[in-house]
């Protein structure tokens, strides 16, 4: 019993000590901390983000690192913490990061976590009456619309799904005028899927499609027979599925089992990933998804290779994490961030101001615009699943 107590005490002490181990400017390294889900059904997003951040840091370091405000060069290191897609843990993780010398954090994966932790940030920068946390956070994955406007300390480098589905539905109307009806499927308990389905549905109706019905399921569901039966009964021309790869594949397999063959399949942005192809490439054949990443430029191809080397997969989310590291490098240099323990709050203010001042950044598919409410306007294209790969179907901007 005594031994167990001693062991537990030692473990507890060991777990607390690393808190004082912040990035030290003296050894000229700058630690960028990311956070997101590395557990549960969406863990792959966290794994990919971490790999992308590490890949980008390696690229930056190979090119000489980052120039700090005092003119010295520093190498970037990456740490990634798991928030388990849980709002309370997300807040705790950000408070932990903010307790160190960090001047920015990258994350989170889940929109429900972003909702909570952007809420604890100071709403309006410099508002002395608001005691919210003054710490800049830039999101790579959390994709629910309009999150960055919660606080002037929150930023996102995620694509606008509103623009993507607006464009896609208009394209469907123009190129497939014979399609008249749409049936929706939505992962109802996941904030991102649910919110994006609202966008899909509104844009379908705006383009003259009749919404014949909607089936709903939950993120952890594994059987979909009832929902697909309703889908079959509706016999719509288009089926639009707003769900992540895990339930998207479940639904697609059930559609195959019940013989549901719509003339067109549309998917959620997050499902344009390797997980969908690994889970159900045959059933996903032909599904069209708008995405802000595909290895179609030399930069994107190189990034995809680098991310793979670090054990991840490049998709629209992890590509955003990759881009963020280069954005942070540019802001560190343009704002002359010192990265020293005695300049922490000043560095955070500079980082926030630098990110807020951005009008345009370099993305893997081209220039990325920045809006006044701290969101990104990313170039996108449509991909479709073909022979077990994501193949570019159309580039709306071209």
């Amino acid at each position, binding site marked *: 019993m005594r031994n167990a107590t001693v062991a537990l005490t030692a473990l507890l002490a060991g777990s607390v000590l690393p808190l004082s181990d912040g990035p030290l400017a003296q050894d000229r390294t700058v630690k960028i901390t990311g956070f997101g889900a590395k557990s549960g059904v969406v863990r792959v997003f966290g794994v990919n983000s971490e790999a992308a951040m590490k890949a980008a840091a390696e690229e930056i370091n190979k090119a000489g690192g980052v120039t700090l405000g005092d003119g010295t060069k520093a190498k970037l290191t990456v740490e990634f913490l798991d928030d388990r897609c849980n*709002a*309370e843990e997300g*807040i705790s993780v950000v408070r932990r990061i903010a307790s160190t010398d960090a001047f920015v954090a990258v994350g989170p994966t889940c929109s429900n976590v972003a909702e*909570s932790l952007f809420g*604890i940030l100071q709403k309006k920068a410099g508002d002395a009456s608001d005691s919210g946390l003054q710490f800049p956070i830039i999101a790579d994955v959390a994709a629910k619309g309009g999150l960055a406007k919660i606080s002037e300390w929150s930023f996102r480098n995620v694509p606008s799904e509103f623009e993507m589905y607006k464009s896609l539905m208009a394209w469907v109307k123009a190129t497939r005028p014979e399609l008249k009806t749409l049936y929706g499927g939505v992962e109802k308990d996941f904030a991102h899927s649910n919110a994006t389905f609202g966008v899909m549905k509104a844009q379908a109706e705006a383009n003259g499609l009749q919404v014949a019905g909607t089936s709903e399921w939950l993120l952890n569901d594994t059987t979909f027979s009832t929902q697909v039966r309703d889908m079959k009964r509706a016999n719509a021309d288009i089926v639009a599925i707003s769900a992540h790869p895990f339930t998207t594949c479940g639904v697609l397999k059930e559609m195959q089992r019940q013989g549901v063959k719509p003339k067109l399949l549309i998917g959620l942005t997050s499902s344009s990933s390797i997980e969908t192809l690994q889970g159900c490439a045959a059933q996903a054949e032909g599904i069209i998804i708008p995405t802000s990443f595909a290895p179609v430029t030399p930069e994107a191809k190189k990034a995809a290779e680098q991310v793979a080397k670090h054990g991840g997969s490049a998709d629209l989310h992890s590509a955003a994490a990759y881009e963020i590291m280069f954005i942070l490098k540019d802001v560190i240099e343009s704002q002359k961030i010192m990265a020293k323990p005695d300049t922490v709050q000043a560095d955070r203010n500079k980082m926030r101001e630098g990110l807020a001042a951005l009008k345009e950044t370099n993305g893997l598919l081209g220039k990325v615009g920045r809006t006044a409410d701290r969101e990104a306007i990313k170039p996108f294209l449509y991909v479709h699943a073909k022979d077990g790969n994501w193949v570019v179907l159309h580039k709306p901007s071209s």
Partner: protein
Amino acid sequence: MDFYLGLAQIIGVHTLLGLSAYCVLLTGQVSLAQAGFFAIGAYVAGMLTVLAGWSLVPALLISALVSGAVACAVGFPALRVKGLMLVVATTAFGEAVRLFFFNFTYQIQAGNLKLGPHGGEGFRQIRYFPENGWSTLDVVIFIWIVVALVMAALWWLDRSRAGAVLRAVGEDELAAQSSGINITAVKVSAMTIGGLIAGIGGGIFAHYTTHIEHIQFGVVLATFAIAYPILGGLSNVFGTLLAVIFIQGFLIEGLRFMGDWRNLLFGGLIVLAMNIRPRGLLDAGTTRALKRLFSSGKEPSGA
């Protein structure tokens, strides 16, 4: 420092959640409805401060009363069943509450913003603390005053005749009934007190997380609620506090540096703790030993 204060907030609120289940467990009942009462408290308090512009304290009082009233209403039918049937009944209630909020939308226009619960997308901008200039330390002090008051009330209750009645029902329902105790009234009272405490906890939870949605109040939270007092021991209220510190402070936050191994260790260490301390981290024997330790220096000189 801010991190530790934030952790103290989490521990405080989860202690309230655990204490709400503690009351019910004293009567020998296992309730998985506590997450439902917690959710009701969260939404009611959030709506009162955000939509009605109330101060936090009256909002928490109302959220406690609403949760308590619902717990009382649920208690009558639910507590007529026992054991596994009660677990199923209270789980069903908790899920019903969660699904109610999943579908519940009530928003008002405030400038260019819409405020209020919005079904599956949740209820954002519950920013009473930062908007009123409360520092993290202020919030911690407030939470722990509430926790201390609740613990003191339960401590007093435990040592009163009412507490003895609760424990009598928990130890041997038949014997308690034979000695004239109204079993249903006792169980419903415990459920109501548990609902009141969960309502307060939920109300505070909504305000420190600033955003709530149905998914936070599922079976996992309900399981945590009963795990705290069971792991901590039912000999007194401090067992629940100790278990919350163990789970939230050590297993969740303390082991975060272990990365992917943390989740594996999480379950393993709980099983280990329950094997080492089968009657709870702070069981009756340990409590007696601690009492002896603290009272040994206070023996009257003439004794």
